[in-house]
C-alpha cells in the first residue's frame, strides 16, 4: 500500500494559503474544462450514432469550439425573469444546482497524492453533496410560477428519492469491501482487484441510478420535452440556463468520477500499464463512463414515469440489498 495522507500540493507548498489557492484553482479549472470536453463528446458521439457529423465549423477543426461559442451566445441573451416568478429564488436556483458538483470535485482523487482534500468521510460527503443539486431544480421549478416547471421539478424530486437509495446502497457495498469511507482509501483498497468484478451488478445499479439522478435519458422524465417543455428549466434563459446545462455536464463528470473511484479502481492502472500516470487513468475512466452515459442517451427511449418509479423500487433496491447481504457475509466469513 502506498497510502498518501497528504496532497502533493501540500507537500510542495508549505504555506497553507498558497496551497489552498492552487488547489481551488485546479479544481475550478477541471470543473470548467472537463464538462465542456464531455459536452463536446456528447455532441460528436450522439451525431455519429445517428450517422451525422455534429458540429464541424466552430473553431475550424471539427467544431471543437462549439460549446465555447454556445457559452458566448448564452452570455449575450436577455435574462428574462417571469413576472409572477419569485425573483430571489429564481435567481439563485442555477447556483444551487451547479455548486454541489463543484464541491464534490474537491474530494475526487486523481492520483495517490493528487487530490485537493482527503476526507475521512469522503464518499458520504460526495453522496450528500450530489443530492443537493436537485434542490436547485426544485427551487427553479417552484419559483418559475409555471405548471410545467413545477411538474418537472416534482418529477425530479420523486426521481431523486427513488434512485438515491440504490445509489447509496451500491456505494455502501464498495465501502464495506474497502473498509473505509475515504475515496483515496477506497481506490487503494482496489490494488488487488477492481470492485467492478466482485460487485458487477452493483456497478450496473450505480450507473443506472447515477444516470437517473442526473435526469439523463432514458430517465429524463423531469425534462421530457414532449410533455412538459423542459421541466424546471422552461422559464430560464441566457446565463442561468447555461448554468443548468453546465451542472448537467458537471454532474456527468462527477458521477463518472465517483463510479470509477468506487468500482473501476480510480487512478490505479490496468496490470502492466503502470508507466501511464494516475491522473491519465482517472480521466480516461471518467471519459469512458461519460461515453457510456451518452451512449445510453443515443440508444434508449424515455421511460414512463410509473415505469421509472417501479424500476427503482421493485428491481434496483431489492437486487442491491441482496448483493449487500452477500458482501456482508463474505466480509465476515473472510475476517
Amino acid at each position, binding site marked *: 500500500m502506498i497510502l498518501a495522507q497528504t496532497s502533493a500540493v501540500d507537500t510542495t507548498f508549505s504555506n497553507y494559503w498558497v496551497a489552498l489557492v492552487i488547489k481551488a484553482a485546479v479544481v475550478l479549472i477541471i470543473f470548467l474544462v472537463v464538462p465542456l470536453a464531455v459536452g463536446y463528446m456528447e455532441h460528436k458521439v450522439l451525431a455519429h450514432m445517428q450517422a*451525422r457529423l455534429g458540429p464541424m465549423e466552430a473553431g475550424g477543426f471539427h467544431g471543437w469550439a462549439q460549446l465555447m461559442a454556445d457559452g458566448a451566445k448564452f452570455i449575450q441573451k436577455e435574462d428574462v425573469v417571469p413576472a409572477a416568478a419569485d425573483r430571489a429564488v429564481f435567481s439563485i436556483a442555477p447556483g444551487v444546482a451547479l455548486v454541489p458538483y463543484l464541491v464534490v470535485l474537491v474530494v475526487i482523487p486523481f492520483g495517490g497524492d493528487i487530490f485537493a482534500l482527503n476526507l475521512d468521510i469522503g464518499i458520504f460527503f460526495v453522496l450528500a453533496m450530489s443530492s443537493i443539486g436537485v434542490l436547485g431544480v426544485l427551487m427553479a421549478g417552484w419559483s418559475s410560477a409555471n405548471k410545467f416547471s413545477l411538474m418537472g421539478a416534482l418529477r425530479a424530486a420523486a426521481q431523486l428519492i427513488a434512485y438515491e437509495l440504490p445509489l447509496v446502497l451500491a456505494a455502501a457495498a464498495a465501502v464495506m469491501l474497502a473498509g473505509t469511507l475515504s475515496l483515496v482509501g477506497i481506490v487503494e483498497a482496489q490494488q488487488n482487484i477492481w470492485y467492478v468484478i466482485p460487485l458487477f451488478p452493483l456497478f450496473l445499479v450505480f450507473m443506472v441510478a447515477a444516470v437517473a439522478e442526473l435526469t439523463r435519458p432514458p430517465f429524463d422524465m423531469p425534462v421530457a420535452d414532449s410533455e412538459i417543455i423542459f421541466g424546471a428549466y422552461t422559464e430560464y434563459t441566457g446565463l442561468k440556463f447555461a448554468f443548468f446545462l453546465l451542472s448537467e455536464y458537471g454532474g456527468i463528470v462527477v458521477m463518472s468520477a465517483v463510479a470509477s473511484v468506487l468500482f473501476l479502481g480510480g487512478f490505479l492502472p490496468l496490470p502492466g500499464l503502470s508507466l501511464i500516470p494516475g491522473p491519465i487513468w482517472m480521466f480516461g475512466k471518467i471519459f469512458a463512463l461519460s461515453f457510456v452515459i451518452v451512449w445510453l442517451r443515443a*440508444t434508449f427511449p424515455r421511460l414512463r414515469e410509473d*415505469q421509472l418509479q417501479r424500476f427503482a423500487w421493485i428491481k434496483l433496491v431489492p437486487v442491491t440489498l441482496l448483493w449487500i447481504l452477500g458482501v456482508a457475509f463474505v466480509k465476515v466469513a473472510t475476517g
Partner: protein
Amino acid sequence: MATTETRGPEGDAQKEQGIGLGLLQGLSVTLRTMLKRSVTVQYPHVKPDLPARTRGVIALKEANCTVCYKCSRECPDWCIYIDAHKETHEPAGGGRARSAKILDRFAIDFALCMYCGICVEVCPFDALFWSPEFEYSEYDINDMVHERDRLEEWTYTVLPPPALEEGAEPPEGGGS
C-alpha cells in the same frame, strides 16, 4: 435493466429473448452506426450530388416559348409574369402579313411560387422544365423575382434524363 409491465404477444416475445438482450441489441446498433461513416454532405464546402430530375427551380428555354400564356394562367398563385407584343412580317413572296408574338418579359416570382410544377406540366413546347439549381435565395424578397436571363441560365445545368427502368412504358410522342 428489464422493461416493466410487458403485456400481450410482444411481451411474450420479449421474455423469450431473455432479459436485457433487447437493450444490448439497441446498444450494438448505435455503436455500429457510430463506427460507420456518416452520411452527412458538408454542403457549403461540398456540393450535393443531386438526382437528374431534381425539382430545384423552374427554368425557361426561351427559344421554345410561343407566348401562349398557358403557364401564367394555370399558375395557382399567379407568380409568372409575361409581357409580349405582336409583330407582323410581310412574307418575301407577297401575300397576307404573318403575325408572331415576341416575348418582352418572362419572370417568375419565387417568393410566391409553391413549386407545384403545373406550369411545367401544361407547357406545350417544353419551354419550362425543372432544373436542379437551388442556390437562388436573396436578402430582399423583391429580388426573388427572377427574370428570363436567369431562368435561361438554369437550363444549362439540367442533366439528361435517366434511362427508363426495365419494363417501363415508353414515353408519349416518341420524345421531342
